[in-house]
C-alpha cells in the first residue's frame, strides 16, 4: 500500500475541517470506548486476563522460530502448504502464482490488514485476477475507488450512513435507501453469487496455533467462513508473529480480542481451519495455502520495539486515542493508524517514510491502559524518537533548541538569568489582559489558543528575595 505518513500534518488538518468525518468519528467514543469498558467490567478480573495475554504472546515470541517450525510441521502434516514471504512483493508473487497455476479468475477476500499492507489487490488485478472484498466495510471501500481503510477493525468508521447510501445508489443503480438493514441486504445479495462462483478465497489469520497447525479467524459477518469454505482454494495470509502455542493459549486471547475490540464477549464466528478435507467431507477447499509474511517483523523482534509484536490487532489503542478520535485513521497515511500504527509504520515501511508518526501522540497513556497485551505504546513511540535523534533524523532547529535548553538547564546560574529574562519578556507580551495572543516561534500554540502570561518574576527570584527578608 502506498504510504503518505509524512503528510500527517496536512491530512490531520483536512480531517479536522471535515464535518462528515467529525460526525462519524464521534461513534468511536460513543460505541467502542464504553463497549470495551463494560465488557472488561463484566468479565471480572480483566487485569489478570491482560497479564495472561501478555505472557502468552511473550512466550510465543521468545521461541518464535521453534513455534513457527512446529506450526509448519503440523500444517503440512494435515495437508496445508506453507509459504514464507520475506516481504510484501514476495507474498504477492506467491499468491498470484497460486492463482495462475490454478486458473483462478476471481478471488473472494475476507478482511485482512496484512493484505492491505502488501497491496495484494493491486498485484492480483495486475495479473488479471479479480479480487472481491466481501467484508461489508472493505466492500464499501473497494467500490469507492479503492479507498483505504481508516480503522483495522471497522474499516469505514469514517463514513456516515448518508455517504454509504449515496455510494450504493450510484454503484448499484438501485433506489437510494438510508435504512442500514436494507443497505446490508443489498450488499449481501450482490456478494453471495461471488462467493459461490469464486475460485479462490483469501483470508488473513488472527492467530496461528502451533499445536495443531491451524489458522484462526474471528469475524462477525460470516464472510470469513464463506471465503474459507466455499471456494476450492483457500489462501491465508498473515504475519509470522501471529503464532500462539496451544489451544488453551488461543482461548485466552479469544477472550481478550473481541472484548477489547468491540466489547463483545466473543465474535459471532471463530473459525479454525486445519489442513484440507478428509475423505467423504464434501465441503471445504481442496487446497489450503498459508503464507507467512516477515516484512520487517523479524527485525522488530531484535529491536527495542519488540513488544509491539505482541499486538493482536484489536484496535483498542486507536479507539481510546484522543488524537485518533480527533483526526481518524486516514491522517496516519498507511494501513495501521493510531498508536499501534505509529509504532509499526516506521518499523515496517521505513522510518524515513513515517518520521512524523512517533510524534503524533500526546503521551497520555490511554492506549497502554487498555491494550489487551499490555504493550507500552507511548514508551515505544518515545524509543522511536530516540532512534530518530540517534540517526540525525530530527530537524536541526529542534536538535539545536533541545541542546541549548538542556545546556542552560544544567547551568543553574545561567538558567536563573534566562528564566528571569523570559518571565519579564512574556509578561510584557501579555500586556494589560495578561494574555499572549501571538507567541514568537510559538504559532503552533497561539494559532488556536492564547498563552497566559506569567507574573513577571520567577519563583527562584521571589523565593530568594523572601529568604533575604527574613
Amino acid at each position: 500500500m502506498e504510504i503518505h505518513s509524512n503528510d500527517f500534518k496536512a491530512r490531520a488538518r483536512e480531517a479536522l475541517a471535515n464535518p462528515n468525518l467529525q460526525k462519524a468519528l464521534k461513534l468511536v467514543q460513543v460505541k467502542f470506548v464504553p463497549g470495551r469498558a463494560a465488557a472488561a467490567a463484566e468479565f471480572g478480573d480483566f487485569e489478570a486476563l491482560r497479564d495472561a495475554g501478555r505472557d502468552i504472546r511473550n512466550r510465543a515470541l521468545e521461541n518464535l522460530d521453534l513455534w513457527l517450525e512446529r506450526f509448519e510441521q503440523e500444517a503440512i502434516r494435515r495437508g496445508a502448504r506453507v509459504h514464507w514471504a520475506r516481504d510484501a512483493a514476495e507474498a504477492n508473487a506467491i499468491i498470484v502464482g497460486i492463482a495462475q497455476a490454478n486458473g483462478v479468475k476471481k478471488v473472494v477476500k475476507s478482511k485482512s490488514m496484512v493484505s492491505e499492507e502488501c497491496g495484494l489487490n493491486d498485484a492480483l488485478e495486475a495479473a488479471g485476477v479479480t479480487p472481491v472484498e466481501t467484508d461489508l466495510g472493505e466492500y464499501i471501500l473497494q467500490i469507492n475507488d479503492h479507498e483505504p481503510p481508516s480503522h483495522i477493525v471497522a474499516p469505514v468508521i469514517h463514513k456516515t450512513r448518508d455517504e454509504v447510501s449515496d455510494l450504493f445508489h450510484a454503484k448499484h443503480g438501485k433506489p437510494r435507501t438510508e435504512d442500514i438493514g436494507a443497505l446490508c441486504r443489498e450488499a449481501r445479495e450482490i456478494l453471495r453469487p461471488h462467493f459461490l462462483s469464486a475460485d479462490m478465497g483469501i483470508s488473513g489469520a488472527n492467530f496461528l496455533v502451533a499445536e495443531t497447525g491451524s489458522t484462526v479467524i474471528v469475524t462477525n459477518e460470516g464472510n470469513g467462513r464463506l471465503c474459507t469454505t466455499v471456494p476450492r482454494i483457500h489462501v491465508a495470509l498473515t504475519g509470522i508473529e501471529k503464532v500462539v502455542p496451544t489451544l488453551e493459549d488461543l482461548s485466552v486471547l479469544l477472550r481478550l480480542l473481541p472484548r477489547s475490540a468491540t466489547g463483545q464477549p466473543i465474535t459471532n464466528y471463530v473459525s479454525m481451519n486445519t489442513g484440507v478435507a478428509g475423505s467423504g467431507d464434501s465441503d471445504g477447499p481442496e487446497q489450503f495455502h498459508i503464507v507467512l509474511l516477515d516484512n520487517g517483523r523479524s527485525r522488530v523482534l531484535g529491536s527495542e520495539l519488540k513488544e509491539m509484536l505482541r499486538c493482536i490487532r484489536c484496535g483498542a489503542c486507536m479507539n481510546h486515542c484522543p488524537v485518533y478520535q480527533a483526526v481518524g485513521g486516514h491522517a496516519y497515511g498507511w494501513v495501521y493508524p493510531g498508536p499501534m500504527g505509529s509504532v509499526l509504520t516506521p518499523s515496517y515501511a521505513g522510518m524515513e517514510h513515517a518520521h512524523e508518526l512517533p510524534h503524533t501522540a500526546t503521551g497520555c497513556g490511554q492506549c497502554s491502559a487498555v491494550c489487551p497485551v499490555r504493550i507500552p505504546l507511548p514508551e515505544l513511540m518515545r524509543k522511536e524518537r530516540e532512534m530518530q535523534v540517534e540517526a540525525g533524523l530530527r530537524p536541526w532547529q529542534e536538535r539545536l533548541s533541545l541542546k541549548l535548553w538542556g545546556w542552560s538547564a544544567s547551568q543553574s546560574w545561567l538558567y536563573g538569568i534566562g528564566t528571569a529574562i523570559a518571565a519579564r519578556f512574556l509578561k510584557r507580551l501579555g500586556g494589560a489582559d495578561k494574555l499572549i495572543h501571538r507567541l514568537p516561534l510559538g504559532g503552533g500554540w497561539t494559532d488556536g489558543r492564547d498563552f497566559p502570561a506569567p507574573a513577571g518574576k520567577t519563583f527562584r527570584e521571589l523565593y530568594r528575595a523572601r529568604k533575604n527578608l527574613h
Partner: protein
Amino acid sequence: MRVALFVTCLADLMRPNVAFAALKLLKLAGCTVEVPETQTCCGQPAYNSGDRATALTLARKVIDEFEGYEYVVLPSGSCAGMIRAHYEELCKDDPALLARAKKLAACTYELTDFLVNVAKLESVPGDFAGSITYHDSCSGLRELGIKQQPRQLLGKMGQVEIKEMSEAETCCGFGGTFSLKFGDISTKLADNKCENACATGADAIVGGDLGCLLNIEGRLRRKGDRKTQVLHVAEVLAGKLD
C-alpha cells in the same frame, strides 16, 4: 519530615504562586521544607523528544540535588511521574546511577498524593467558595494513580462543590511539545476539554499540572471566556499567600 520541594520549571517561570502554595501546604502538614537552590528541570522535555543524552545530564543533576532528603515533593504529576516512572529506564546503563535513581524514585511524590497518603494533612486553609470541576492530568492519573487525592483534599474545604465533568480522564491535548508541533489537533482536544468542563457550569477548572492548565486556560480565553477560573489545585487548597 524533611522534604525537598521540586518547584518544576513551569511553576518557576509561569506561576510561582503554585510553588508558594505547595510550600505553605507542606509546612502546614508539619514538614520541614527545603528548596534546593540550584534546581532547574527534571529533563522530561528532552526525554520525551528522544534526546536521551540531554535528559540523562539533567536527571544526574536532579539526583545530585535531591537525594538525601526524606521526601521529594512536586506540584506536578507529570514531573513526579518522570522521576518515579521513567528515571529507571533513563539510567539503566549506569548501575551506580540507577541505584540512586531508584532510591530517589521511591521517595518522590506528587503534592496531593503526598499530603493525603504520607503527611496525612487534616485540614486545608483554602477559602475558595464555589463550584469546581477537576481535570485529571494524564501522567498523574495513569503513572501515579492520582485520582481521589486532590478530590479528598478539596472535599475538606467547606464551601467547595465538585462538579465532575464527563471525560475528566481524557487528555486536554497539551502533551508538552505536542502542543506546538500539532497545534491544531492540540487545540481541538483542548476544545473538547473546555466544552466538557464548561458544561458542568463550574466556577473554576482545577488540575494538578500547569501544562494542562495553561493549555485549557489559553483555549478558554481565546474563545472569549474570561469568567471561568483555571487554577492549580495547590493554589485552591492553600488560599491566601503571604
